């Protein structure tokens, strides 16, 4: 059970960065200004890099000879363990950056905790990722503030993005038996324990952005357990996995 729990935990980490990285990469060549094209490609690149580490370790822990690529390109939607937030469509640039900020804020708290993991491999990946994540949250946070506190239109768009995305935030703090096993082994923190730090960070930035956090505490779930993803994930996988599925066994 311990190894399977660790495997599930690693899939959750790797699938988050893979699916979000993929979404961000969809922007290539279409962003509002050249500097943003560069920044989005850079963010996607960091996330794909983190994926290689998390899923690489997941394959190793599973012990069935599956590589990071096997896990990325040859699992179907129900085997994916990312939170729903990561698979939601890009929408406009504001929705993409709001989604990024809500994720980056979580990742910045999470990586900080994982750096003291009892599993050295996990700690090492987190240490590397934490530097990237610190930069990501600063950038996405600044952009959320700039657009939230910009023009009337940009404010309205950012508030709409926050209203749409907020019901997907809670899933990042859900706990189950996988998390309990990680806590017991000292590998990872209880997600619920990250919420206070997260709320402080997010509250501060959204306050500066003059945006209002919805008061409804309901949240969607089903991504990190794989029980029920959104309809969006299947389409994403169709594109992402197409070559590997159409030409099995080829080396690229």
């Amino acid at each position: 059970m311990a190894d399977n729990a660790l495997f599930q935990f690693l899939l959750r980490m790797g699938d988050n960065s893979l699916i979000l990285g993929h979404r961000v990469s969809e922007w290539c060549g279409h962003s509002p200004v050249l500097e943003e094209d560069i920044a989005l490609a850079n963010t996607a690149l960091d996330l794909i890099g983190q994926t290689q580490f998390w899923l690489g370790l997941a394959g190793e822990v599973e012990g069935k000879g599956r590589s990071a690529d096997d896990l990325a390109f040859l699992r179907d939607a129900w085997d994916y363990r990312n939170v729903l937030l990561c698979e939601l469509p890009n929408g406009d640039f504001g929705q993409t950056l709001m989604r990024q900020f809500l994720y980056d804020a979580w990742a910045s708290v999470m990586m900080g905790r994982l750096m003291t993991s009892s599993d050295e491999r996990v700690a090492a990946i987190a240490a590397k990722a934490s530097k990237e994540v610190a930069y990501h949250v600063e950038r996405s946070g600044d952009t959320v503030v700039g657009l939230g506190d910009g023009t009337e239109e940009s404010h309205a768009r950012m508030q709409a993005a926050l209203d749409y995305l907020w019901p997907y935030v809670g899933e990042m703090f859900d706990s189950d038996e996988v998390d309990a096993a990680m806590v017991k082994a000292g590998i990872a923190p209880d997600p619920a324990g990250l919420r206070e730090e997260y709320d402080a960070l997010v509250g501060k930035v959204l306050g500066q952005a003059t945006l209002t956090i919805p008061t409804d505490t309901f949240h969607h779930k089903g991504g990190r357990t794989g029980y029920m993803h959104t309809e969006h994930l299947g389409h994403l996988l169709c594109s992402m996995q197409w070559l590997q599925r159409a030409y099995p066994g080829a080396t690229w």
Partner: protein
Amino acid sequence: MYAQMITAEASDEDPKLLEEFQARIDRDEKIEPKDWMPMAYRKTLIRQIGQHAHSEVVGQLPEGNWITRAPTLERKAILLAKVQDEAGHGLYLYSAAETLGVSRDELVELLHEGKMKYSSIFNYPTLNWADIGAVGWLVDGAAIVNQVALQRTSYGPYSRAMIRICKEESFHARQGYHAIMQMAFGTPAQKAMAQDAVNRLWFPAIMMFGPSDSESVHSEQSMTWKIKVRSNDDLRQQFVDQTVPQIEYLGLDLPDPGIKWNEERGHYDYSDPDWSEFFNVIKGKGPCNVDRLNDRTNAWEDGAWVRDGLLAHGRKKAAARTAAE
């Protein structure tokens, strides 16, 4: 500013200044932004550097077309890094153009109005994964041949931008060749994709050097000013000579039956591309012209609220700082 410049007449320029300028060029001195230069020299550079910058930006699109379908995590990361580099080249080049007195926004507007061009190669589609290898190997390979020559161009900022860009482009070309090697030496289906890519991209790639010297409208004056330092045909021949053995190494069929080693010349002979196709693409009738330009103008228009929002926020912050002082 730019609009005024392009209508300005150069006829009243001081012949003495013109003569001194040409003497500097002839001594291989670099011309720097604050130096006097003929209006036509400035205009030619703005056109050429602006077009080059636009090519880097539009060039993101055919490669971006495959980022979401890259077959492995590593290939996806390599492609993302490459496209990010191209956008970065766009930035340096717009900055180089700005030293001539034209803003990036003005240049972008001219592109969107169809008054400035970008490299015709980006009006061809990327249809299978091997195209991504072929773009790196053939397209960036052709660009490098051209850009290595441009490192010696007479305008300082352009020359320095080229030196920096060439380093990254060489890396891209090697990565591209590696990617297509995997395909050519892979399964029969992969090899077929590689062959298809080479067949489709060969002529567009050799057209990147522009029409034959006798047909090229901009060549002669540009050579005199050393904006251009080698002729289109020269550069094309160099590219053909270096690329044919690479195609043979891959075990692929040559994309042009006219390719043949010419002992006497010490070069490969090759067929002239269909220049009517080239001129059609230049006129907007390539397979992707309309879509490429729509993608760029839509991105610009859809992003207006973002640029306006960030500028408004910047003004508020500046006002708050002033009020606090």
